[in-house]
């Protein structure tokens, strides 16, 4: 087989590519798989069929910010966790709060973050987020000192299984529930 003849073969090529890629594949990536021109609409249709083919199987085809990927259905994660018991160490509260500010208020400067949290930002915190490729600098604010503006990356969305920032839990929810509980 050098050219996929029919729909089944095309789906097989897509399946192999998605099962072997550790990064999500974009539609552009997937078009490259086929020597002949493949319309994006056709590709979407094939992906939809492929997703259905796997509906009752162990992995699921999901769409995230940068493209499509196969991932284990959540019910298997408890087993997989046993393979690598040394869990990735949790991020500190400072890291998670800084991340939350950048995610919900982006683009923000370091000063904005300090204003909201009420404490200075530890450079180490920003470094951790940037090393994980969850946060990067998207520009400078045009004020004296031209401070860097930080935003979350597509990779952050991928890692949280999100297609876009709008899928983040809404902030209003927090405020409302809090008002009702009045703890």
């Amino acid at each position: 087989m050098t050219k996929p003849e029919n729909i089944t073969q095309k789906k097989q090529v897509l399946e192999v590519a998605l099962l072997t890629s550790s990064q999500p594949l974009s539609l552009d990536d997937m078009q490259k798989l086929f020597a002949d021109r493949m319309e994006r609409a056709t590709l979407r249709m094939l992906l939809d069929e492929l997703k259905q083919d796997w509906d009752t199987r162990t992995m699921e085809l999901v769409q995230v910010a940068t493209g499509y990927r196969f991932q284990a259905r959540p019910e298997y994660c408890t087993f997989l966790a046993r393979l690598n018991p040394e869990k990735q160490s949790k991020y500190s509260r400072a890291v998670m709060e800084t991340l939350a500010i950048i995610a919900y208020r982006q683009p923000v400067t370091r000063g904005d973050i300090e204003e909201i949290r009420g404490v200075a930002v530890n450079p180490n915190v920003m470094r951790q987020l940037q090393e994980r490729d969850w946060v990067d600098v998207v520009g400078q604010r045009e004020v004296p000192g031209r401070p860097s503006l930080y935003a979350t990356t597509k990779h952050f969305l991928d890692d949280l299984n999100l297609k876009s920032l709008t899928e983040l839990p809404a902030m209003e929810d927090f405020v409302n529930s809090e008002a009702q509980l009045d703890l």
Partner: protein
Amino acid sequence: MIETPLSAKIKGEAFTQLPQDLYIPPDALEVYLEAFEGPLDLLLYLIRKHNLDILDIPMADLTRQYMEYVEKMKAIKLELAGDYLLMSAMLIEIKSRMLLPKPAEIESEDDPRAELVRRLMEYEAIKLAAQRLDEMPKVGEDIAVASAYYQHISDVKPPEVSLDDLTEAWRNVLMRASHFKHHKVGKAELSVREHMSMILRRLKVDNFLEFSQLFDVENEGIPKLVVCFLAILELAREGLLRMTQQAPFTPIYIQLNARD
């Protein structure tokens, strides 16, 4: 839920929550300080712990409790973050402004606590958002992504070559080949050379052609026909093809100059 999780050990005994009366064993103070993310976090803790309404904070109580905490930190000469002192100043300012009688004409002035409340609510929302983000499944922790193996075949993409690259190379050739006799490569010569290659290609396929077959009189203009004729002459001169004619006025045949 809002309570800051603590796991301090003092003299072998585990302290899992802050004491109700805010008495903090001096040894543990540093641990507690680290447990708070800053003055806003501490204030939120005090408000929540004592069931105070965030929208109607009793400034006197809150300021007193906060200051007690800060005093204790000072007492053990803990290096106190400037942020905590700055907050003390802000609380005292709000408290004193609330004590002052309001002049009638600025009755509608904002509550001096408004800015503090706004910041506390903003911070609390972010704090909760951070908890939610922390709980969300993440790749590498709770999400396992397919990454089966495949045999990597290298599909080498040939280098790009531009016209500039090519002419640069040619310029270099000419530059170095000072002994080179036939420098002149004009457009006319190139088209002759192109036709020479084309004629050789045709003869490779057909082996034997009538002279007139090489000329497409109907479709090509005079210049092209001339170029084609020049190409044939050049090929003949270089001994690459042979022209034969059986008798005068009979067809001229052209073939590759194969050795007998």
